[in-house]
């Protein structure tokens, strides 16, 4: 009897243990929110490198608010970050208190996820007048809720190597270089041909045809969608013109046939095998990292043929967070003009807060690595001319396939531009058919 009872109790305990073990994971990640010292823990979920931590912004914020602790998580690539963010939003779990959204995804988030996000337009400390109007509008729903605050934008310039330009008999002064192609991307193509005729051995004029394509499409107001939200990239003359010019770089043999943000591209920076690249403000840090100290003062920055924007981000505050008010306060502070100016100074992310553009930290900024180029002046001027691009929910899919499927085939595999275009359209049609 005792043995039986003991045996039974033993089993009951075992069953209880099993139940406890299977249930434990659910209990383990129960509500947190406070650290042992009783401070509020705010989590920030980002992709890539925003540089908040590196620029000391979190430290500055926790000095202002000693009752707050900030924890940041970051996923390297937006392609991995964004699907995860969407699933977390839909399931209302696993979200950080503040999340970043890339500009190319903001239309979809604003259109489909606005109900799950806080209206930051009315959050304390947010001043609409501080921001570029188009940036503000991109994260604003039809009924006037602003679910995202702009962090940075990506006004473009052209980064070029002075040594290669000199050897190819081209001017090296940044203003003279800018004049080579001012006003028209076809003049950039023309300069490329001039470069090719006297190119130093083993070098090309530009890194990739798809980089040129992104740069040109970033300069037109109507791109892949029209005002009604219809997909129009196929029939849009602006996209076709961008395609034709970019493809001409490939067919004329002006590219190094690389794909951007791949190890080969990185190595080409180190080896100095191409002379120019279209560079948004945030790319300067990347070039500095990859080209290394050996290329200091070799690279310089000139104005792009036409003003264009590439990238930039937003911060959103999910409604499921436990500290929504504190999170909104943090997002507002991080995107305030003073902090954006500091981020530009330290990291090269160009402020989306137009109020910051006049601050000396921005307007007078020079970049020592790029031959003390007056990047503040160059990018401020570029930002002023950027048209208000109409965004659509599937911009990312369209842009990515045009570049990585269509143009890359033309560039790397030598396919005819027409065939490359057809391949891209086929892939996009397939991807847009859900």
């Amino acid at each position, binding site marked *: 009897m005792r043995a039986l009872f003991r045996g039974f109790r033993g089993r009951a305990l075992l069953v209880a243990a099993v139940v406890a073990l*299977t249930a434990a994971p659910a209990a383990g990640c129960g509500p947190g929110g406070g650290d042992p010292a009783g401070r509020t823990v705010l989590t920030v979920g980002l992709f890539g490198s925003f540089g908040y931590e590196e620029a000391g912004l979190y430290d500055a914020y926790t000095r202002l608010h000693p009752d707050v602790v900030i924890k940041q998580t970051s996923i390297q690539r937006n392609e991995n970050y964004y*699907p995860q963010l969407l699933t977390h939003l839909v399931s209302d779990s696993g979200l950080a208190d503040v999340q970043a959204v890339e500009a190319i995804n903001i239309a979809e988030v604003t259109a489909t996820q606005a109900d799950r996000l806080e209206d930051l337009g009315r959050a304390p400390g947010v001043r609409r007048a501080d921001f570029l109007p188009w940036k503000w509008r991109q994260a604003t729903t039809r009924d006037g809720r602003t679910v995202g605050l702009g962090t940075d934008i990506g006004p473009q310039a052209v980064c070029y190597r002075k040594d290669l330009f000199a050897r190819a008999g081209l001017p090296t002064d940044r203003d003279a270089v800018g004049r080579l192609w001012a006003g028209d991307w076809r003049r950039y193509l023309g300069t490329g041909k001039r470069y090719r005729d006297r190119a130093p051995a083993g070098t090309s004029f530009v890194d990739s045809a798809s980089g040129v394509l992104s740069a040109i499409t970033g300069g037109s107001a109507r791109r892949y969608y029209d005002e009604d939200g219809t997909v129009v990239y196929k029939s849009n003359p602006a996209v076709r013109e961008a395609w034709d010019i970019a493809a001409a770089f490939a067919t004329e043999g002006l590219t190094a046939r690389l794909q951007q943000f791949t190890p080969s591209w990185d190595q080409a920076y180190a080896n100095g095998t191409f002379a120019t690249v279209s560079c948004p403000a945030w790319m300067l840090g990347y070039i500095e990292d990859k080209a290394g100290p050996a290329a200091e003062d070799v690279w310089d920055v000139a104005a792009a043929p036409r003003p264009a924007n590439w990238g930039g981000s937003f911060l959103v505050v999910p409604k499921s967070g436990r500290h929504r008010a504190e999170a909104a306060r943090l997002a507002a502070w991080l995107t305030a003009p003073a902090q954006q100016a500091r981020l530009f100074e330290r990291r090269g992310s160009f402020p989306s807060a137009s109020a910051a553009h006049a601050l000396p930290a921005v307007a007078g900024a020079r970049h020592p690595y790029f031959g003390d180029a007056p990047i503040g002046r160059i990018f401020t001027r570029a930002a002023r001319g950027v048209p208000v691009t109409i965004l659509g929910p599937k911009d990312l899919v369209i842009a990515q396939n045009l570049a*990585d499927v269509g143009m*890359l085939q033309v560039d790397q*595999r030598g396919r005819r531009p027409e065939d490359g275009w057809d391949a891209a359209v*086929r892939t996009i049609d397939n991807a847009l058919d*859900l």
Partner: protein
Amino acid sequence: MATSARATTDGASPPDPPAPPSPLPPPTRGPGGPKGSGSRKGSGGRAPGSSGTWRSRLYRWDLKATPYAFVAPFFLCFAAFGLFPLIYTGWLSLHRVELGGEAQWRGFDNYTGLWDSSFFWNALANTFTIGVISTVPQLLMALGLAHLLNYRLRGRGFLRVAVLAPYATSIAAATLVFAQLFNSDYGLINSVLGWVGFDPVDWESSKWPAQIAISVIVIWRWTGYNALIYLAAMQAVPQDLYEAASLDGASRWRQFISVTIPSIRPTILFTVVVSTIGATQLFGEPMLYGGSLGVSGGSGNQFQTLSLLMYEKGWITGALGQASAIAWVMLLLLLLIGGVRLLVARLNRETT
């Protein structure tokens, strides 16, 4: 021969077990057992009787329920992480589901859409060709390797561990190293080809070179593993068969063909099936090999496998319904392969 002998000894043992349980029941039935005691002792006699039935019921319940309690954790986990996702995926595959949106009924449109999609057929063909290019050489090499390891070699133990080393390497680490080796511009393999006098091969954007490069990674990683399985099977082949063969004047090669291969045929069939399943699910190698284009399997989908297409559909374009349909098609394909294996095994048994 050896296995059948073991099977008969196993078959003889089952009659024994029923004996031990018999001593257990009597003690529990004992107290309340005799009929007469209950009427003589009145109420006092009923107490032990009822406690006895309660105890025996408890005991019987215990006997019946305990095994289920022990297997329950597995089945709970399986239901949560195996069965439920399977059924839910099936349900999703009949809907139009956008990542972050609501589901809309669609019937079998996702499946007919796959039938009409050139991307699906391309992925299926790639899965097949990469599967063949990787599985066939891999198993042949494993067979040869196992045969060599079966000899009395010096440092045999070390060599046996060494062939398994690639299997212990993480897919990511191995693939990233191979991607460097196969780099079209700076890779070691193209440099070596250059010394020998060949033109550089475009290992990523051309179809067959890319598929071969990915197959090389798979072969490198799995050959040793299969070799060890073969080796284990070869060691179970009775030595007298080889003795008899060599007495008949069979060469080493002849022994390998006529004794070793037929003896380990079930093992070969097993590795063929496992490798085929692995090839059907190939994902990590092409994805990492392709870098930022890995999910699309290169700019022209030249090495996009079914798993990659499923991932791209689900997480890049956000079409969860279509991705689920692909998942179910893959499941059906694997069941088909399993059925073929069963058929072959049965035919195999009938012929021997």
